[in-house]
């Protein structure tokens, strides 16, 4: 068809679309304003406050749109590129929450440096914009652009402290590997386009000609390449090699950003793409998903077993967690899509809260080390006897670890229960076996952390006494404890909100 004819069919942006798109527009407007702000006055306090303000407003706006019911149903299509539904904005809210946590933790880290870090906050906002575009995308072009925006801004952040030991190495590793991932993805998109002739997610049906035998090969290869590109970002098993190194080398708030924002956004777009294109009807694709999920659960959990460095341990644990989460992609019928979204978002919320808690504690310890001019990474032994010195922090840590391990009365347990349910409905027994065994192995490295925290040992490697400890914001800690406990005991209060 002549491209000019197509234009007349597609309505351009109208007022409703502007309203629905407003959180993303606000975010991008905020980026432009913060550029102006930097030109006017270079001050770390102002720019940090301003970024937080933008994120809070974006969060409120997306919450408001969620509750206003404008998004209910199939969602709103905004030009061929974006399609916003309630799941997009639920993910966006999660992303904004974790970005707020990242910025408030960054403020502590950046305090010890002399420069004014304007770029830092600008890049964080750009990461969030990339993530927001990803969660709203309905087209391979916008997905690719969002993916690139996310990765390129992250590259700038990962090696941000250039003078530190691993910074440049980490930045390069991430740059090259994410470029590889994007080229894989681009090739996959090209293969899919060669069969379908359309880049929109929504153009597909089970009876379409490209599902039939002679054309199926290229379509399958394309989907496989696309999935492997996304799996790179999610650090799923055969593509996980970058994760521990980059997690370790990046500044800790950025590690948190990678572990939460980038992964939540990528997983959301993966789900959108899979459900819209109907890949769950393709047996071969399901087989690949099951294989990758099992491999991630096994490899992630096993490699974490002997790990002493907390940041590397979190990297391995996130590999395993996203292995579990892949279960939601294996659904048997279109009716279970809603439940799959609910399970995924609940699980992601649990994962987000636990990660924010653990990384904020890691940052507190790192700050302590750098103040005492013994700059080093936080190991498991440093947490010895934490419970007897810092009650609140230790309780939060124990809660988060239990949640990651999936012990009852925590959010992690409820999330895993949803996943288990999902796997039972789709009758994928291998995945259930993997989930159970993986969680079993997981206990072998989660529980030692808790034992370490309670251990009474006077010859502990570090003594952080009450007076020289970094004061982590008490309110923040108590808030996190209450939230994770409340949602763990009353999961309904969250999950009914999710649908």
């Amino acid at each position, binding site marked *: 068809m002549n491209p000019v004819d197509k234009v007349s069919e*597609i309505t351009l942006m109208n007022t409703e679309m502007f309203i629905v798109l407003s959180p993303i527009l606000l975010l991008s407007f905020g980026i432009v304003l913060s550029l102006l702000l930097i030109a006017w006055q270079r001050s770390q306090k102002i720019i940090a406050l301003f970024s937080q303000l933008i994120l809070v407003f974006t969060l409120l706006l997306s919450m408001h749109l969620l509750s206003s019911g404008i998004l209910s149903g199939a969602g709103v299509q905004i030009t061929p590129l974006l399609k916003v539904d309630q799941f997009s904005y639920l993910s966006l809210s999660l992303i904004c929450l974790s970005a707020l946590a990242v910025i408030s933790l960054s403020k502590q880290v950046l305090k010890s440096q002399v420069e004014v870090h304007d770029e830092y906050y600008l890049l964080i906002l750009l990461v969030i914009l990339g993530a927001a575009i990803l969660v709203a995308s309905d087209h391979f072009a916008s997905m690719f652009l969002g993916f690139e925006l996310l990765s390129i*801004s992250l590259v700038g952040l990962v090696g941000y402290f250039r003078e530190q030991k691993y910074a440049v190495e980490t930045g390069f590793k991430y740059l090259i590997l994410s470029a590889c991932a994007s080229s894989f993805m681009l090739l996959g998109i090209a293969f899919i386009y060669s069969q379908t002739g359309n880049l929109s997610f929504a153009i597909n049906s089970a009876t379409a000609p490209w599902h039939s035998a002679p054309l199926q090969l290229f379509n399958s290869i394309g989907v496989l390449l696309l999935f492997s590109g996304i799996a790179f970002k999610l650090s799923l098993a055969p593509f996980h090699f970058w994760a521990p190194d980059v997690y370790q080398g990046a500044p800790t708030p950025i590690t948190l950003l990678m572990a939460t924002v980038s992964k939540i956004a990528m997983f959301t777009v993966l789900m959108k793409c899979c459900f819209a294109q109907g890949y769950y009807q393709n047996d071969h694709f399901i087989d690949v998903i099951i294989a990758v999920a099992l491999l991630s659960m096994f490899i992630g959990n096993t490699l974490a077993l002997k790990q002493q460095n907390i940041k590397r341990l979190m990297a391995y644990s996130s590999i395993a967690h996203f292995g579990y989460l892949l279960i939601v992609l294996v659904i048997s019928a279109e009716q279970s899509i809603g439940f799959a979204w609910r399970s995924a978002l609940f699980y992601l919320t649990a994962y987000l809260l636990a990660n924010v808690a653990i990384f904020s504690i890691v940052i507190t310890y790192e700050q302590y080390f750098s103040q005492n001019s013994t700059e080093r990474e936080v190991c498991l032994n440093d947490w010895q006897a934490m419970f007897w010195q810092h009650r609140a922090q230790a309780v939060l840590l124990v809660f988060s670890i239990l949640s990651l391990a999936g012990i009852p009365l925590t959010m992690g347990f409820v999330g895993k229960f949803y996943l288990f349910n999902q796997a039972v409905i789709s009758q994928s027994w291998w995945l259930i076996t993997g989930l159970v065994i993986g969680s079993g192995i997981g206990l072998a490295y989660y529980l030692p952390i808790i034992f370490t925290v309670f251990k009474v040992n006077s010859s502990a490697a570090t003594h952080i006494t009450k007076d020289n400890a970094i004061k982590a914001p008490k309110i923040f800690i108590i808030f996190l404890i209450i939230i994770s406990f409340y949602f763990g005991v009353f999961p309904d209060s969250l999950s009914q909100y999710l649908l």
Partner: protein
Amino acid sequence: MSRFASIEGLFYLAAIIAIVASLKVVTGKNTVHALLYLVISLLAVAVCFYLMGAPFAAGLEVIVYAGAILVLFVFAVMMFGLGIDEMHNAPQSKGLSLWAGPAFLGSLLLVELIFVIDNSELALQLNNQVVDAKQVGILLYGPYLLAVEISSFLLLAGLVAGYHYAKPEHRGGRL
């Protein structure tokens, strides 16, 4: 002959040239020689675009990539002043062999292009399905407007990240 001289055959020829030249780029030891092959690779891709009925994209490929980006590359190579490294990998002989390869591939592309333009039958076929600048513009500023905006943010991100890595190490205290 007719099979080979079809648009499809010419397209595959250009594609093979692009692949060969790209392989030479990544296997070459000397940066400047690798860049020479890179130009050929980009030009071959431009010919591919032209044969697919997208002369506008082909023109952009030549102007933006083979023109501007390549100049940037050469500029960067000159700026780095690799010195010893560059000398180390410099070829011993100064004969024809250095530029014979790129020149051969380049002239192959030229012959192909002249053949297409000269052959009235092929030219007619190409004109049937041309996507010209106007259509591209209408699409970019119509339904794909948001993509243009997102790309501008992508460039901003690249700029800021690049600036951060490249700025001088010590600025000397608080600003």
